[in-house]
């Protein structure tokens, strides 16, 4: 068992998980007609949750890989299920991202959601609690509970407040993820019995499993995580879900939900099945590279704003899985950072699309043109997100992608080289999109649009700040990861002895 440290005097993680849920319960008692109060309550709850999560950033001990802010209570003793939560360098940033993104989602839905307002905000807040729960859980049963609980509000967000084809998209989303999850559940149960009936994740991680079992379980977990990421070829639910979801749904989906797949690989697949993970590396790298190139090329011909960004997510998440399965420091750290980055950038892109969709009610790229002339401030913000998305230096996207390509190249040269082509195509589709929407002659359909209002601007500002902060000075963010990642890689690479030191490795190959 790992040594456990406690950083604060109060149970911060439980507060973060249950405060939004309590907020949702509170909303139940507000009268349906009082929309203003409902919105303000949700906003205040989400802001308080965010403020309460800040100590995670300031009080996290970066010098250790052990779990922090830990809480552990017996829950179902007969099955040895515990309420066991904690954070380490891999998960801490995602909790912060979740609390931030929820505020922005509330802000962006302010005027956009006009029906079933109460239920909408209840779903958002429950979603927040479940997401934080997923990242904090250290007990497999608890993890699985949050993991599945998350599906329901998301399913409702798409199915109730979505676009014209929402039912199809919602069912597709639900079925895809459910099938994957069930296989993971099987894996969890197998582990439970093999390890002597414990769901304690840290305990399970300290054991070694026979190779064949590792391979089977690796693929069982893979089913759940790969669908969530989504990895090629399990990605087809994502464009549908993104396109039909309301803005807030798309933002949560892009910023947090699809990160859980990659998070799962890091939290479970690598430490639980190190030998299998290493053996499966080539397959994982191939799938990642296909996702990068395939996702990017398919973006070129999209005619729907949200679909384009959805496919670009497939490409960018390909970078993330590439980094993770490079299994070296730069790759994994780059991968984790890129998960945060992608959450910020793509979250911001969906927020932006929501802002203009609210005015035009069309997602067709051809319906736009010359928006920079009528909405200059909005155009400037969108430009920042575009640049971050194509990995321009001084934005966060560059740091993540560079580290990933570096790690990928060190692991397998072809992987790094092919991944780098994704950056060329990325510039192609994003700049083309920007040109068609913002440049050229003003399309009469958008000629009368008003620029962003204060609320919308407020929703984008945190993203812009984070993009440049991480791009110019990423040390505070990368600093969270160093100890945890090196510990993780030590475990993965124990079989072959030492952590792969990329520089030495290549010098040897030079001879």
């Amino acid at each position, binding site marked *: 068992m790992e040594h456990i440290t406690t950083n604060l005097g109060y149970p911060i993680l439980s507060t973060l998980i249950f405060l939004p849920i309590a907020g949702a319960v509170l909303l139940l008692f507000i009268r349906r007609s009082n929309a203003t109060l409902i919105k303000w309550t949700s906003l205040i709850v989400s802001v308080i949750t965010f403020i309460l999560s800040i100590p995670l950033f300031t009080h996290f001990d970066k010098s250790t890989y052990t779990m922090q802010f830990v809480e552990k209570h017996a829950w179902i003793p007969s099955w040895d299920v515990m309420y066991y939560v904690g954070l380490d360098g891999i998960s801490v940033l995602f909790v912060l991202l979740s609390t931030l993104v929820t505020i922005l989602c509330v802000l962006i839905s302010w005027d956009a959601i006009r029906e079933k307002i109460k239920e909408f905000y209840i779903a958002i807040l429950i979603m927040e609690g479940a997401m934080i729960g997923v990242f904090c859980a250290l007990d497999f049963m608890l993890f699985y509970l949050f993991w599945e609980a998350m599906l329901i509000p998301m399913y409702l967000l798409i199915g109730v407040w979505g676009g014209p084809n929402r*039912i199809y998209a919602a069912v597709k989303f639900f079925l895809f993820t459910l099938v994957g999850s*069930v296989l993971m559940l099987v894996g969890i149960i197998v582990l439970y019995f093999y390890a002597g009936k414990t769901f304690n994740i840290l305990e399970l991680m300290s054991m070694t499993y026979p190779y064949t079992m590792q391979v089977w379980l690796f693929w069982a977990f893979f089913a759940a995580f790969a669908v969530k990421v989504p990895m090629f070829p*399990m990605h087809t639910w994502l464009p549908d879900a993104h396109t039909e979801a309301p803005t807030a749904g798309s933002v949560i989906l892009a910023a947090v939900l699809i990160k859980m797949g990659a998070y799962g690989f890091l939290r479970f697949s690598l430490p639980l099945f190190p030998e299998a993970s290493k053996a499966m590396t080539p397959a994982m790298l191939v799938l990642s590279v296909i996702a990068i190139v395939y996702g990017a*090329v398919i973006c070129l*011909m999209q005619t729907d704003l949200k679909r384009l960004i959805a496919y670009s997510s497939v490409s960018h998440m390909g970078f993330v899985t590439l980094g993770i399965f490079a299994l070296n420091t730069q790759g994994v750290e780059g991968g984790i950072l890129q998960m945060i980055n992608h959450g910020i950038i793509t979250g911001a892109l969906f927020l932006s699309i929501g802002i203009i969709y609210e005015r035009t009610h069309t997602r067709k790229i051809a319906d736009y043109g010359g928006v920079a002339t009528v909405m200059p401030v909005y155009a400037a913000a969108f430009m920042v997100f575009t640049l971050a998305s194509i990995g321009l230096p001084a934005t966060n996207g560059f740091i993540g992608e560079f580290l990933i390509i570096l790690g990928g190249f060190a692991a397998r040269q072809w992987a790094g080289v092919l991944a780098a082509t994704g950056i060329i195509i990325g510039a192609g589709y994003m700049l083309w999109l920007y040109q068609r929407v913002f*440049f*050229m*002659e003003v399309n009469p359909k958008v000629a009368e649009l008003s620029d962003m209002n204060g609320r919308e601007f407020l929703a984008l500002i945190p993203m812009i700040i984070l993009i440049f902060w991480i791009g110019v000075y990423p040390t505070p963010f990368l600093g969270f990861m160093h100890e945890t990642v090196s510990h993780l890689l030590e475990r993965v690479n124990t079989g072959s002895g030492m952590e792969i030191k990329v520089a030495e490795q290549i010098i040897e190959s*030079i001879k």
Partner: protein
Amino acid sequence: MNYYLLIPFLPLTAFLINILFGKKYLQERAHWVSILAVAGSWVVAVATLLEVLKGKTVNENLYTWVLSGSFEVSIGFLIDQLTTVMLIVVTTCSTLIHIYSVGYMHGDKGYYRFFAYLSLFTFCMLMLVMANNFLQLYFGWEGVGLCSYFLIGYYFNKKSASDAGKKAFIVNRFGDFGFGLGIIVIFLTFGTIYYEPVFTQIGGVAAQTISFLGYEVNLATLIALLLLCGAIGKSAQMPLHVWLPDAMEGPTPVSALIHAATMVTAGVFLLARCSPIFSLSEPAMVVAALIGAITSIFAATIALVQNDIKRIIAYSTLSQLGYMFLACGVGAYTAGIFHLYTHAFFKALLFLCAGSVMHAMAGELDLQKMGGLKKYMPVTYATMFIASLSISGVPGLAGFFSKDEILWLAYAGPSPVGKFVWAIGTIVAFLTAFYSFRLIFLTFHGEFRGTHEQEHHLHESPKSMTIPLMLLTVGAVASGWVGIPNLLGEVIGIEHSNWFSGFMNPVLGHPEAHGTHAEEWMLMGISVLAGLTGIGFAAVLYLVKKDIPVTLAQKFSMIYKVLWNKYYVDELYSYTIVRPTLWISKNILMGITDARIIELIVNGVPRAIGGVSQHLRKVQTGLLQHYAAIMATGALIIGAWILLR
């Protein structure tokens, strides 16, 4: 804090002020912020030059930028002789062009935005040349590319302008693809990407080979060629030259600053900065020399027949950049940088003069609609005439010294392709003089061929534009005097007259040259003769026998058509790269793989699990309870099986 930090950060401050407050508060006064900042940078750059002249150099880190495992890189600054030359070139040109823009951009509704971008560009360019490591170089590199994108597409309501900006960015990404991989290989080889340790260790690994994608290649050659990719993109060399002519869609001051004097020379700067790497790889050097030579003649021939005043100068820039590549490729880095430095003055001047002409002609670019402008715009005429003399290599002017040094070192140096590239360079010298004076004669001499309205409007540009022209003329004439060949210096009684070469020696080394004085005199004579003949031909064809060009174009209509269409390179790329990619995206990936194959397989998995496929439709009820029930049942069955087996 060190004073040199002001050089890049003053323009950055100006950018932030203008972009945040320009629209609301500064408006027509936006230029003050930018001009004061860049002039301040110039002052500090001159102070830095004085320090470096005393022998002081700087190599310091500001703060750690990226740290991950053994990968560590800082924002850091290296100021040596090479950096200083670039600082002077960048801040001088930038300051003058900022001032010129006050007149040129007067009344434009994006006035503040224009100056904001110019300042941002200056910041990025200065970060590029002052970097002490490859990643910061890459930062500046992409940063200047971004500003180029913004400024080419400055008139973004025009489709052609926004197309051109996008094209410039994407074509450059192709080059940066190689550049980025080069940085990665450097890190994996040396464990660091700071210049200093890399350049000191490169000698030790030069003979080593590395397996790259299954091929055994020499390590130095691999690194050099990957870096060369970036240089080719940024300096618009073949085959990535296609973006630069289109970049003329931007306002003319932008063409002068970014697409002539500074940004496009970043590739040459990269070759010079990495000379310790390139010098170890003969194949990479030969490739650089050949690409430079081919680009220079390729662009010069296209320039012969074009009628767009800015595009002619753009092709001329391509051609001169080819010269610089050629110089670096034969190991004459000093000569390459020397030409970069003189070229910055006379080429910026040419562009600004063209801008002045456009200003008078209300935006007209077609040479055939000009003529006889010299009596209306004497200052523009005189300065552009001198700039053209300089680029043609007329003795005594800046272009002569740098061009002559390149040609001599190509001929006399150790490069296996030296004589070949010298021959091409000499032909190009002739072509350059010819098309430069074709432009002069068609624009300023003869009768005015435009409309009456245009003729009525003709006027000399305001002082804010003509004064920078005159100052740049001083550069176009005198900037070469710091590098008078020793051969000539002896004649006029100055010892070690090639002071520039001596100054750069600590960074770029001394180029090898084996030849007699007689040979050197002879080559100098040939290149001068080539230039003068070119001017003479242009005078005959466009001043005396004006019917000849038309007859020639008709007689050799095939060649004329190929040149007019720029050798059809754009069309080639469109049909081999752009269209096939889009076709695959639409018809294969979207139409077949995603919509049919994957949907079929993936939807088939739940079918297989569910057992009977017809039931699936019933399962898709959209009712959550059903899914939950299925999930629970499945889990129960599996759990039971494990428990009971």
